[in-house]
């Protein structure tokens, strides 16, 4: 399943937190399929680099400095984007952070920050984009959750709550938007090789791999491929689902 097989040249894809990491890989995958890719992030320097990289892949990439938890800013930005690009076919709520700490040490600020950006950010972007998708009677929204939202993890109560919340949020939106032909699904990545995991030692890596049935960490491209499937016509009868990209880690 290579992006060359897919043609997204008439699609506009909006991805939050896409200047780096998994978000950038998703953006890159859509760029190689010819999509117009709109990336939102908080770091102008990273945005500029990402846009350059994405255009080098043959995409039509545009970067926007925006904060997903700023409702009025997101609302006016989306209205502008619709004017500029005609439509938004796909929203990928990818922006997310971690502030890991053991429960007994976790500060309220750490809890609030993770819940705000990961969950409230998805709420705001989804609400603002649905306004347009509802009128278009078409759209696909993809929430990047995490296996941690399914199985929990010590030291990540805030992150787990945000991602578990995102999965439940996905189902509610899927029910509410279905009559308007707008689908909402969640993707739950497992252990994926990114800048964030690059610093892990080989021992820890081997430890992780041991519990994964496919016996290795995943790549951002594995996540991007599923996003492309959920974005397009191939998945037109799929909504409200959470699909794990985790080498079998959370199968049940």
């Amino acid at each position, binding site marked *: 399943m290579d992006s060359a097989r897919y043609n997204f040249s008439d699609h506009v894809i909006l991805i939050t937190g896409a200047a780096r990491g998994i978000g950038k890989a998703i953006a890159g995958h859509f760029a190689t399929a010819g999509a117009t890719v709109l990336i939102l992030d908080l770091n102008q320097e990273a945005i500029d680099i990402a846009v350059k990289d994405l255009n080098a892949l043959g995409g039509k990439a545009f970067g926007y400095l925006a904060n997903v938890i700023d409702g009025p800013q997101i609302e006016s930005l989306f209205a502008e984007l619709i004017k500029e690009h005609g439509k938004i076919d796909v929203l990928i709520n990818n922006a997310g952070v971690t502030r890991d700490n053991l429960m007994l040490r976790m500060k309220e600020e750490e809890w609030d920050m993770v819940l705000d950006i990961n969950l409230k950010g998805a709420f705001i972007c989804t609400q603002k984009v649905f*306004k347009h998708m*509802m*009128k278009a009677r078409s759209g696909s929204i993809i929430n990047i959750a995490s296996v941690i939202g399914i199985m929990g993890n010590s030291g990540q109560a805030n992150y787990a709550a945000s991602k578990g919340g995102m999965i439940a949020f996905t189902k509610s939106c899927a029910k*509410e938007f279905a*009559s*308007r032909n707008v689908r909402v699904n969640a993707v739950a990545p497992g252990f994926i090789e990114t800048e964030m995991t690059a610093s892990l030692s080989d021992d820890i890596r081997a430890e992780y791999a041991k519990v994964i049935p496919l016996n290795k960490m995943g790549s951002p491209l594995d996540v991007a491929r599923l996003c492309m499937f959920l974005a397009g016509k191939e998945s037109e009868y799929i909504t409200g689902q959470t699909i794990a990209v985790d080498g079998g880690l959370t199968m049940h």
Partner: protein
Amino acid sequence: MDIEAKVKQIVMDKLGVEEAQIVPEANFIEDLRADSLDTVELVMAFEDEFGLTIPDEDQDKLRTVGQAIDYLKSKLS
């Protein structure tokens, strides 16, 4: 086009109903079979068409075609 005609046009477009059904006493949900999302869409369409903002607390006052026309007339006069 006057307010009344514009409202009728929007209701026809959004709800896919015949012009004859759009009488002042027609209730959007009970008579014109709008679902809850349709009513939000109607309000948004009125806002776009007439260039005003209809606050959430006013949306409950727009249950029938007649109420919508009267409300918009009062706001635009």
